[in-house]
């Protein structure tokens, strides 16, 4: 009956990080350029509210990478320091925090641990101030796919929505073939929710043309009460439901929807379900929810992933999708920094990041690549399965091959004239 983890340790760590940042606020940061002083990386992420749990795991992931880097001697003895700040998940706050990190705290660049809402705000700041930046969380496709948004010195080490849409579309087409042709959606009403949902439905229609969209409902992000959305879905009575709600929102939605027996009535594809902390937090977890893989110690089923999982759990937290993504982002950033010899010039760092392939526990072939054409991550493990309330949490996992994904992605880009 007792719920969700508590972790005093990590919170104290945040305070220390924040404290160190504050001291430099007063000391006026511009002075601190002397050799030997640590290179500071600013990381805005969500540390309060519904999705704080994810922000904390992202922080742990970033710190794992940084600690390992420092333990290995840093850049010829020069250390790297993370300054982590709470953005509360609000775009304006994320923009403010990012500017503060750069101007008040003297951070050299940004490892962005913000969700999509805040990421677009952070993106504006780093574009405006010409700051090297790695987005580690936002999956919204247009962030890197749309040339209008692109900045050559900004990268993404997160999944991309379109990849999950292709993978999910292929997977869901099987559900459609089995008779689930009337679909409804229930996703958060903001950039990520809207684009991810429409991309999923787009590809579902590609793979299963018989599918019809019969209803949609758009709760606000962090909405406390989903009753009206739930009953709306009941009235529509679809064969299957798609939702990209995530974090605490997904938990609250499931708890409330279970009261209405919603999941007894149709199949559900909830792409963000497959993170262990989310699964554990849902009290009335119905069986057989279809989900994308988020982070799973057996996907890919390699020793490096197993080891990483063990290492991560030492922090007292459970690894999440955010955790591996931020860890990966930090790895790219640190590798680039090593290459430039500690030079934080945005163009030099960008050159050292673009097109790079690194060894990774999360890659399908043991590596992941920062694709040169659009500065986004590829070759990470991706696929769909069904959730179960106990370990191993995700069963019947069907991976999607990257050549398939890339083919459809290219078509999609053409359709949207992104190429």
């Amino acid at each position, binding site marked *: 009956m007792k719920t969700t983890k508590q972790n005093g340790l990590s919170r104290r760590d945040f305070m220390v990080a924040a404290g160190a940042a*504050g001291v430099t606020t007063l000391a*006026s940061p511009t002075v601190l350029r002397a050799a030997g002083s640590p290179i500071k990386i600013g990381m805005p992420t969500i540390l309060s509210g519904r999705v704080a749990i994810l922000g904390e795991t992202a922080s742990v992931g970033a710190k794992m990478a940084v600690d390992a880097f420092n333990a290995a001697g840093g850049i010829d003895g020069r250390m790297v320091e993370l300054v982590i700040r709470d953005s509360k998940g609000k775009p304006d706050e994320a923009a403010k925090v990012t500017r503060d990190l750069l101007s*008040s705290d003297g951070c050299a660049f940004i490892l962005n641990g913000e969700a999509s809402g805040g990421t677009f*705000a952070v993106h504006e700041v780093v574009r405006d101030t010409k700051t090297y930046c790695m987005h580690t969380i936002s999956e919204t496709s247009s962030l890197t796919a749309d040339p209008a948004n692109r900045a050559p010195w900004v990268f993404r080490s997160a999944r991309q929505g379109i990849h999950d849409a292709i993978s999910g579309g292929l997977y869901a087409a099987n559900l459609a073939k089995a008779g689930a042709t009337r679909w409804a959606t229930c996703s958060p009403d903001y950039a990520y929710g809207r684009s991810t949902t429409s991309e999923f439905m787009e590809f579902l229609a590609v793979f299963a043309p018989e599918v019809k969209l019969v209803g949609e409902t758009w709760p606000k992000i962090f909405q406390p009460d989903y009753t009206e959305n739930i009953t709306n879905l009941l009235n529509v009575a679809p064969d299957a439901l798609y939702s990209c709600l995530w974090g605490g929102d997904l938990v609250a939605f499931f708890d409330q929807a279970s009261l209405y027996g919603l999941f007894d009535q149709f199949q559900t594809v909830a792409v963000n379900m497959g993170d262990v902390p989310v699964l554990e937090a849902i009290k009335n977890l119905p069986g057989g929810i279809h989900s994308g893989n988020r982070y799973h110690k057996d996907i890919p089923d390699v020793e490096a992933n197993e080891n990483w999982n063990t290492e991560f759990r030492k922090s007292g937290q459970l690894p999440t999708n955010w955790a591996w993504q931020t860890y990966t982002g930090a790895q790219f950033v640190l590798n680039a920094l090593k290459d430039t010899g500690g030079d934080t010039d945005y163009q030099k760092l960008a050159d050292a990041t673009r097109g790079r392939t690194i060894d990774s526990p999360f890659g399908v072939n043991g590596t992941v690549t920062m694709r040169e054409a659009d500065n986004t991550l590829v070759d990470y493990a991706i696929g769909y399965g069904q959730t179960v309330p106990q370990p191993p949490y995700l069963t019947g996992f069907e991976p999607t091959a990257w050549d398939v994904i890339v083919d459809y992605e290219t078509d999609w880009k053409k359709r949207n004239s992104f190429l």
Partner: protein
Amino acid sequence: MNSTRIFARTSLMAVIGLAVLILIGVIYPGTWLLDTMTGLFASGLLVMSLHLLVGYTGLVSFGHAAYFASGGYIFGMLLQADGVVAALGGWAVPIATLVALLGTGGFALFVGLICARLSEIYFAFLTLAFQMLLVSAIQGLVQYTGGDQGLTGGIPRPEFLGLNLVEVKDRYVFSAFLFMAGLLVIRLVTLSSFGATLRMVRDNETRTAFLGINTYRVKVAAFTIAGMIAGLGGVILAIFTSAAYPEWAGWAVSGEAIFMIMLGGLHSFYGPLLGVVVMRAINDITLIYTTHTDLAKGIAILFVVLVLRRGILDWILDVRATRRKRGTSGDQITSQALTKTAKGTKDAAS
């Protein structure tokens, strides 16, 4: 002193103030102070313009952030619109600023015409409702406003008069100019005959009406002016962030503006500015030790309310006034008198 000379002298002081601010910008080597001050300029105008209503006219508006956001959004949406920058070139930013000012003025006038008929808590709630309606509109009209996401993609700010607003220093200088201009307007309004009329309405609206003044018009005019200046603050923030967000119109922004006024001092002209700085300082200093900035702010506010029982600057002025005994001039009304009045009205009402 001659009344036109007072205006001239005040304007001169503003010019000197601006010169000092620009000098700081030129001398200061980094970006920290300049960016911090640019942010303070934006909140400064929001708070000072609200003070014109709350402090000078006795109108407690809970929805002042609506005009702040309106300024930022009009400015941003205009510059992002197809062809605007191409057509206006170097004039784009000044013209967008002007349009934002006038557009916000029109919006404030519209809301003012409706709200000014109500008094006290009803007025407060109505302004709040309009603000929340604006938030709903911003969130609903996704194709124009970007919805929850705010104005993304950056606001183009072409160079003008040799100022490139993407550069920290240039941006700071232009923001400082807008801030001092806004501040000067507010100051001149409070010093003018209209300013005296505002204080009449605050002190005793019934009596003011009995002197043949249409107090409804006074309130609408004050509301409009205050809205415009708040809009100017929004323009500064839009220039600074190269974006605009629906949270700017949120009630947290309106609320915080009121609290900064109260914290700094409701009854002195510069009190609210002090409130802005103090709030920011509490925030930044607390961050050195803990992330629990809200706790520190809460305790500071409780101290001010329950111990000082008035804003910081009011308290300082009162202490000085009591020491010196007597010698109050036009604007330096001691807050004791006002506190008494407030109590008086409250007693009479209940």
